[in-house]
């Protein structure tokens, strides 16, 4: 208690030990509860309202046929996509911010979201493709650009500052490309494109849930297993190298995971802005723990996105305003808050 009030160690006689931070644990549990509650509320919201108790009963398999159809076929996939997308964005954002050592260095500012958008717009505008093809286009755009970003920022190892600046350049080019694609479209395609570009969860079904779930099931454990190396890397490459972290390998692995997560999330729901930027920062402020806070960020992302979707449905009516608009407004508020607090503390 004297030396480590923030963390507790759980030890077994066999020599195993786990390090737990009680406060972070409580935050994670609360966030998970909030995400689930928002999910249940979201399932209950819409043209056909369903009370929370009925939603839970239906989810357990005891609902009426009508409720079963609405809940399990129509709305549950949407909520699951929301949870997975939010979690992926939160985790991807935490990884990027930690690697670039900059709270503003999130994938949506480094061109990844814009690149996925470009991929999607090519399919919508030039190929008039189906929804599934749009998803593939977005995935391809994000992945190609993510690896190009890494390659361009590479010069005897990737440095945080170079990654950020190259990302900003990529972002500007991709924004212009998207603007161009939008001018090429007829008005119907343009409207579809703009809705996609804002990020929306409406009309998501089980087809989108399964691949996303599979990807998360592989990547989340992989990333978390390398989290300790990432903690060390926040002290600088030299120190972490001296401590025995294989810096470039860990970084490549984590960046690749972050790119995959972000691209997949964007492909599934469009470039929902600011979740990747804000979730890690909010999580960090709740846990008050240094380090990347990967698990809390992940939970925060999920809770944030589903809650924002629910708020948008409640405030503007079913499917009037895509969730991206709400997260955009939240992002603006977050920036102002950052302006006031971080500047006073003398750091950004």
């Amino acid at each position, binding site marked *: 208690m004297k030396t480590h009030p923030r963390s507790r160690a759980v030890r077994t006689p066999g020599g195993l030990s786990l390090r737990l931070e009680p406060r972070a644990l409580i935050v994670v549990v609360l966030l998970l509860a909030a995400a689930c509650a928002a999910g249940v509320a979201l399932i209950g919201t819409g043209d056909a309202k369903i009370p929370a108790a009925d939603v839970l009963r239906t989810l357990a398999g005891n609902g009426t046929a009508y409720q079963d159809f609405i809940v399990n076929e129509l709305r549950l996939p949407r909520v699951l996509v929301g949870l997975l997308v939010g979690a992926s964005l939160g985790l991807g954002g935490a990884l990027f911010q930690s690697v670039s050592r900059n709270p503003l260095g999130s994938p949506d500012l480094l061109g990844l979201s814009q690149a996925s958008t470009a991929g999607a717009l090519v399919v919508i505008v030039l190929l008039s493709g189906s929804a599934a093809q749009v998803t593939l286009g977005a995935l391809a755009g994000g992945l190609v650009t993510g690896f190009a970003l890494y390659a361009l920022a590479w010069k005897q190892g990737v440095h945080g500052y170079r990654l950020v600046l190259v990302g900003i350049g990529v972002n500007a080019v991709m924004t212009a490309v998207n603007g161009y694609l939008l001018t090429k479209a007829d008005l119907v395609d343009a409207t579809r494109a703009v809705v996609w570009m804002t990020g929306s969860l409406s009309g998501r079904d089980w087809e989108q849930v399964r691949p996303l779930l599979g990807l998360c099931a592989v990547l989340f454990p992989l990333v978390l297993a390398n989290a300790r190396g990432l903690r060390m890397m926040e002290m600088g490459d030299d120190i972490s190298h001296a*401590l025995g972290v294989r810096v470039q390998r860990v970084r490549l692995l984590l960046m690749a995971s972050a790119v995959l997560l972000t691209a997949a999330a964007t492909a599934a729901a469009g470039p929902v802005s600011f979740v990747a930027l804000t979730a890690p920062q909010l999580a960090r402020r709740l846990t008050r723990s240094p*380090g990347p806070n990967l698990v809390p960020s992940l939970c925060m992302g999920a809770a944030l996105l589903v809650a924002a979707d629910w708020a948008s449905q409640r405030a503007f009516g079913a499917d009037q305003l895509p969730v991206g608009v709400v997260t955009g407004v939240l992002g603006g508020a977050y920036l102002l808050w950052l302006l006031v607090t971080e500047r006073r503390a003398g750091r950004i």
Partner: protein
Amino acid sequence: MTATTAGATNNPRSTVNRLSAENVTLAYDQRVIAEQLSVEIPDNSFTVIVGPNACGKSTLLRALSRMLKPSQGRVLLDGQAIQSMPAKKVARTLGLLPQSSVAPDGITVADLVGRGRYPHQGLLRQWSAQDERVVRESMRQTGVAELAERYVDELSGGQRQRVWIAMALAQQTPLLLLDEPTTYLDIQHQIDVLDLCAELHEEQGRTLVAVLHDLNHAARYATHLIALRGGTVIAEGAPNDIVTAELVEEVFGLRCQVIEDPETGTPLVVPAARRTRAERVTAAS
């Protein structure tokens, strides 16, 4: 005067010392810093590397700690090429305190020192009772135990440097490399840090390698001195044996007198007065 020259230590293989560099060529990009450089770090020594700016002393330290891969030659740790050894194994044998390190925002002293335990930990062995003990002991040795719960951002420069040293100590390595550990500290804290290093060397028998700017500090604390210039070893040996006015002039291009340090009996370098130096230059030309 038993000054060993660079040529004499160029023998190909040493099985005696744990850490050595063997004919290494060090370069950043295409810029070559040192060629065919061989250095032995005597076991249980407090070795100090000195030399003028840009002589390659930090580069040599980076190579010894496997931060920089030599373009030719190799660095040997316990008889093995350091680059081919598992990263964590090296990290349990050899610690490095780089010149600049960033403390993560909002980290406490105890947490930061605890991070030095990384090479001893694993996914299922995250924080053992021994980790706890070593961290407490490292903080006690460096005199930062009472700061344990303070934030690193709030500390003074001298305190912060002690915390970083504590972190390197917690790594529990028999070899410890320090890159200019006294930079940006005032004279009292410089001596503090150097005293601490001497203590670690004398009382715990660790092998220390440090890059220092101040020749007088180097001469007072080192048991083994390596003088570098332009990427080559000009001289190495005990300070009492090698620090002479001629050597200082050869390495630093500075005329001086070397007198006996009244406190310790080690060599003390006193630069010649401006006028004397000017006269000698005119006399020479």
